């Protein structure tokens, strides 16, 4: 969801996120918000699911290193080669050794692949979110605090970014972009790192405008407050005012934005994998596993189901978590 910047002067903030988050959040003690959040069962469930995914994402590379998880192992003996290489046995070849069955064609343990896929999908989503949030916050603060000419220029820039057909550009430039990163980044020529860097940068570079706009709105009201005046009068530099005075007051909306943008990037990774952009196999991501599994709806239902389920759960949990955070940080929510 993106909200357009406009040259309209609005009597009141109309962005639901601005109102909902509430500028007063900074004043209300964190403790209050924390208690509110803990009382919301749905948010707590989402929170633990998200924690679980993060844990899986962190642990699985360790398990791969140790050799417990084998996302690149293979065993074609588990497959029915005459039927096109679908797993023999019921429910995708589920057994004690392969709790979620094995992958068709190759016979890789599906649990290993999915959990390793979560690692890569989350890494991409987090990095892209960080890029978008950092750019958005910095430009938002500058734009809101400076006003005037600087504000107008950044406003135009936001307009332009928003009207650029981003998916099209992302696709069009992928060959060139990946080749470029392969050249400038260290490491082996065929590691998926250049593809990952390209994906992260492009997602992030197109994702910041809505954040910048939101932050600008917040800054506009913060800058009129007494403590900013005080800082200014005591001769603090601009940089100090931006990052020492204003930024700490913005952590609530930034946190909420983070949890709402990240799931969008998890989905975006999947969509891009379908279009052939992103991390190439054999490295698993939820996106490229899903892109293959959609064709098996009739012949290997568990292979078809699991990746979609995993993706849906993480995206929904993240969104609910974001909503919960917003409600908790919003004192109006108690009314």
């Amino acid at each position, binding site marked *: 969801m993106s909200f357009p910047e406009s040259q309209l002067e609005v009597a009141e903030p109309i962005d639901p996120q601005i109102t909902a988050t509430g500028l007063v959040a900074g004043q209300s003690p964190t403790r209050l918000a924390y208690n509110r959040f803990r009382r919301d069962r749905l948010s707590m469930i989402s929170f633990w699911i998200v924690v679980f995914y993060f844990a899986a994402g962190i642990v699985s590379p360790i398990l791969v290193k140790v050799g417990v998880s084998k996302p*690149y192992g*293979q065993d*074609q003996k588990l*497959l*029915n*080669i*005459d*039927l*096109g*290489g*679908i797993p023999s046995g019921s429910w995708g070849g589920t057994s004690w050794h392969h709790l979620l069955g094995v*992958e*068709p*064609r*190759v016979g*890789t343990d599906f649990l290993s692949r999915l959990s390793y896929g979560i690692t890569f999908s989350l890494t991409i989503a987090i990095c892209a979110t960080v890029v978008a949030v950092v750019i958005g916050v910095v430009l938002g603060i500058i734009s809101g605090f400076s006003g005037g000419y600087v504000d107008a220029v950044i406003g135009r820039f936001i307009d332009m970014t928003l009207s650029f057909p981003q998916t099209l550009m992302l696709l069009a430039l992928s*060959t060139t972009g990946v080749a470029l990163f392969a050249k400038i980044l260290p490491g*082996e*020529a*065929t*590691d998926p790192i250049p593809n990952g860097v390209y994906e992260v940068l492009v997602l992030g570079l197109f994702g910041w405008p809505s954040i910048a706009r939101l932050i600008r709105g917040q800054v506009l009201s913060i800058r009129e407050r007494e403590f900013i005046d005080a800082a200014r009068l005591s001769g603090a530099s601009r940089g100090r005012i931006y990052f020492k005075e204003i930024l700490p007051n913005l952590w609530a909306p930034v946190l909420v934005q983070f949890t709402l943008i990240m799931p969008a990037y998890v989905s975006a990774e999947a969509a891009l994998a*379908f*279009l*052939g*952009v992103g991390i*190439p*196999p*054999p490295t698993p991501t939820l996106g490229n596993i899903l*892109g*293959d599994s959609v*064709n*098996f709806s*009739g*012949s*290997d239902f568990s292979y078809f189901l699991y990746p979609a389920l995993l993706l849906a759960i993480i995206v929904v949990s993240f969104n609910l978590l974001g909503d919960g955070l917003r409600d908790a940080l919003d004192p109006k929510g108690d009314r």
Partner: protein
Amino acid sequence: MASYRTKALAVATAAALAATLAACGGGSSNANSNTKGGGTLTYYVRSAYEHTDPQRSYLGVEMTNFSRTVYRGLVAFPISSDPTVATTPVPDLATTTGTSTNNAKTWSYTIKNGVKWQDGKAITCEDFKYGASRVFATDVITGGPNYILTYLDIPTDAKTGLPAYDGPYKKDGQALFDKAITCSGNTITYHFKKPWPDFPEAIAALHMMDPYRADKDQGDKSNYQIFSDGPYELQGGTWSKETGGTFVRNPNYSASTDSPNVRKALPNEIIFKVGQTSEQITDQLVADAGPNKGAVTQQSIPSSKFSQVLGPVASRTVSVTSPYVDYLVLNFNRLKNLKVRQAIAMSTDDTAWVAAGGGPKAYKPATDIVSPLVKGYQANLFPGGSGNPAQAKTLLQSAGVKMPYPLTYTYPSTPTADAQARVLQSAWQAAGFKVTLQGVANSDVYYTNIQQPNQAADLIWAGWGADWPSAITVTAPLFDSRPNLTSKSNGQDYGAYKSDPFNALVDKAQNSSSLTDQTTFLQQADQLLAKDVAYIPLDIPIFYMIHGSEVLNYTNNAASNGYPDLGPIDVASSVK
């Protein structure tokens, strides 16, 4: 370059795909002969046809479909389940299969009386000559086969290497062309620079020498216009790239000038539907409802759907060996050590490759780059099988290289190709290689990439099918360094293989006027390639196709390049 494997969403370009023809074992189901004609046949196509202009189409399936319906040539391949018969030309618009003189350097044909275009005008010798002349307009008529640029007796410009005639639009050098192809009444004579003993096979397979009406030619604007001389004509006259077209009866076609061995033209209407994925097409044909009862497709059943094609549904499938061979190219700019190349070949697990690709219903293991259905095939050129990593490791150690030896394998990425790459990777690594996989999602970009002279991959996937059933259209265009290697491109010699003894054998083959001699030289050349490990054959794809329950006389044979043959096909009454 023959590749039929494109990502489901990738666009198949004629540039990257190729045309083929070769003999395939015929296959048919419910072949009965109580044919009455009529009805509507639906034909599903996944990727758009890039051209329908006879001089520009180069895809095996386009050529066979249009041959049987709208484009007649001097000669044609007959409908037959016997691969030899199906690849022996019979007369079509000409009275004979051609008479050659002057050591197979001159060919002449006489055009039948009473053959007409769809507007009722007679087909003349000049139409044939005009059709051939279009191939020379290389700035406008792109994408099609251009063999006659090098064969026809026209001098070439020393600087560019292009012929001195530049086609019927600019007309520079028209006099030279008029001397190379001559018309006398209804007889057309072609004069070549070098012997072309299988010229009739070439023009039965490819449309490059088909007649074309000068007054209908608008260059690029004619790309999707079909002006028919066959039993059908295109409704509206213009093919839609994205959706296809409908063929209806051509009132000016006279069956008496044609042979039922080539075209029976039974359905009243053939509707081409372009654009759905192989999975969707298969599912609809399995469901067999409504108009899909009378439907066929050029797509093989994807391996993810094999388990749904069992029992009664299986009786509606036909499985034939395709004319293609998939192979690995070894990059000679990087793999200079023969022992390393041998170790790669020895540790290549062909059995696992075939299994990951879908098993015996999808692929047969290959042991030669030349298809078994093409003259010049040798059964035991490569061992195939699951390889011997242990022995390969010993060999690699004896090569005195640092281990693990790094390798990069590049291939056009699809879910199936990714799985296949992973099994190859694991076998090679067992033999002491460290393998990085480089899948390229965009198949058009893939072919451009692998032609780069500084290509960084060691192993390169490629697929090929003979243009006509002779090894001269396989090993020669793929490994002769002279036409392929330039400073800017490796052409189709993706691995930059360069061998004087090999080139000499190709020269001998090209200059022999007897097909037997030619085949012997080509087999020797192929043995040389095997000894140098210039390539590793992987598989021969199987065409495993399903059709609706009301389709009659369904066959996939050598004459139709392994695709459904529209010559004899018919639909039963309920879809009429």
